């Protein structure tokens, strides 16, 4: 009677120890983005390295701050907006990346940092519901113009990128954007506040709001919008004045499987997986060598946000400015929303 139980207990124990030794947990943003990452990056990496890649979802830097500061780190690799990576690096929330394992060739220097590395480019663009809006806004000035473009708006409940947007709407030239004129930006946001029906919190929610016609116009992320449009949602968007920002990968300080995390990141930013990602979601690869792999069909290239014709319409967000000012802006933003 006792022997089989003991044996199975032993087997289970052996299995779990083996699993924890060869396991890496990646936290990303859920929805169509993470589904794409899972297909193009997580599953192939698990196969190639012979490990288990466990997935989790996060809602931003705060989750990592909570885990690191309370000493209960569960995730080995996290996917964040580059602005958040810059903030987190300053706060000492990340491990140093091991560039003897990660090959950063083909990635813009600005996206290769001691503590984080870019993974994709995404763009925050003006989008609208095609059922309720006949002619959509073609610039942020249009988005702010409630007279000629009547309807409910939605912005993300974060200062990042929203301040840039407000300044562009107020007539600041893209080249003069940084350092941001913060007072002017907040004044412009206050101006639109009565027309903001919802401040969205998660990417999935933003698409839902646009798709259901809950709002007429929204500033949202291009890849998710494109995925919804491919799914026959009544949404359209433009790359005009889209704000191009990167998502980055980092390893939270005290991550349980640090070394394996470096190997996984090396795979995620490799030209092959970078190219494969674009087949699942139209986010731009940070590794330009992805275009040399022959894995991205010609007709698909024009849909990618870093494709030259799209790129020239957009403005690149300065992650370092946010690294320096992000926390201060967040406090001011919250008190503006809550007043």
């Amino acid at each position: 009677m006792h022997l089989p139980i003991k044996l199975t207990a032993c087997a289970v124990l052996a299995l779990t120890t083996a699993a924890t030794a060869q396991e890496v947990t990646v936290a990303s943003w859920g929805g169509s983005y993470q589904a794409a990452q899972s297909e193009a990056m997580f599953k192939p990496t698990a196969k190639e390295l012979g490990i288990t890649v466990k997935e989790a979802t996060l809602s931003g830097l705060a989750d990592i701050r909570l885990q690191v500061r309370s000493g209960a780190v569960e995730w080995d690799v996290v996917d964040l907006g580059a602005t958040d990576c810059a903030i987190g690096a300053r706060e000492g929330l990340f491990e140093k990346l091991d560039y003897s394992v990660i090959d950063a060739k083909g990635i813009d220097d600005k996206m290769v940092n001691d503590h984080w590395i870019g993974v994709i480019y995404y763009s925050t663009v003006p989008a609208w519901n095609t059922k309720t809006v006949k002619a959509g806004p073609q610039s942020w000035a249009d988005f702010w113009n409630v007279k000629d473009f009547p309807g409910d708006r939605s912005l993300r409940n974060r200062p990042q990128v929203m301040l840039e947007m407000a300044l562009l709407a107020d007539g600041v030239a893209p080249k003069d954007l940084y350092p941001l004129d913060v007072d002017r930006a907040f004044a412009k946001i206050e101006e639109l506040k009565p027309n903001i029906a919802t401040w969205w919190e998660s990417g999935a929610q933003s698409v839902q709001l646009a798709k259901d016609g809950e709002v007429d116009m929204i500033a949202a992320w291009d890849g998710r919008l494109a995925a919804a449009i491919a799914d026959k949602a009544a949404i359209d968007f433009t790359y005009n004045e889209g704000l191009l920002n990167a998502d980055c990968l980092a390893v939270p300080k005290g991550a349980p499987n640090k070394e394996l995390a470096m190997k996984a990141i090396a795979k995620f930013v490799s030209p092959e997986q970078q190219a494969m990602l674009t087949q699942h979601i139209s986010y731009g690869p940070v590794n330009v060598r992805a275009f040399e792999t022959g894995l991205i069909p010609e007709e698909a290239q024009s849909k990618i946000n870093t494709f030259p014709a799209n790129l020239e319409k957009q403005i690149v967000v300065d992650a370092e400015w946010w690294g320096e000012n992000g926390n201060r802006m967040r406090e001011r933003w919250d008190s503006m929303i809550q007043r």
Partner: protein
Amino acid sequence: MHDMTACQRGHTLNRQELAADERREKRQILGLSLPAAAIILVLLVIPVGWLFALSFVSNGEIGLANYTRMVEYSAYLSIFSTTILVSLFVTVLCIVLGYPVAYLLGQLPPRLATIGLAFVIVPFWTSILVRTYAWLVILQRQGIVNDALIGIGLIDEPLRLAHNLTGTIIGMTHVMLPFLVLPLYATVRNIDGDLMRAANNMGASPARAFRDVFLPLSMPGLIAGSLLVFILCLGFYVTPQILGGGRVIMVSMKIQQNVQTYFDWGAGSALGVVLLLIVFAIFYLVHRLAGLDRIFAR
């Protein structure tokens, strides 16, 4: 004579035995309530005390910074006033909607009342999250309510029912209603029907009998229910978060933000302490006006 002393001795013996019995019983009861007391101490008193202590720590320094911030920034004032106003409004709505239900249930024969009560309790068994998302589907711009109203030509433009104060209050009222109906029903059920008949016999109109006899007798249940609803509302998080569209900020949401976004336990604790003080103040006020012992003794 001999008999008397035996009897007396018997009495003393009896008294001693009874006293010993009583002591034993007291010890047993104390022993039985010890685990519960320990749980309350470990899970409630100690953590709340710890948070209370934390609320005086800001950036590693001991002081009142977490409390002075609430006075200095206008955002805090508006968060507290939103919280209290929303809670008051929801409580009033629950009374208006819940009183007739409890009254009706009280008049029904027991079997029907049980069925009616089941309708009040069933929503309790559904997750609050599910119910709140259901309201989002019902109330949103292209939701059931707006579609129906436009369909019958009552309105041309969809009403803004979700992602704002309206949606928050509708959702919260729905969640809170049973908390008012149940204690009220318990009180109403025990009101002697003969009292109303007596009032009628004395010539009181039904309205007068209700006002002067039924209503005062139902007061303890009504106050207990309202108090429960109001206090639960003060700490409400899920429904305003989902139905408020980021525009209705209640204290609980600010606490969550302080802890999660800024990792500032001190600031979050201070808000919690103020909320707790508000609850105590309300209890005290109700006690002075109505007598808590009377309300909860029933």
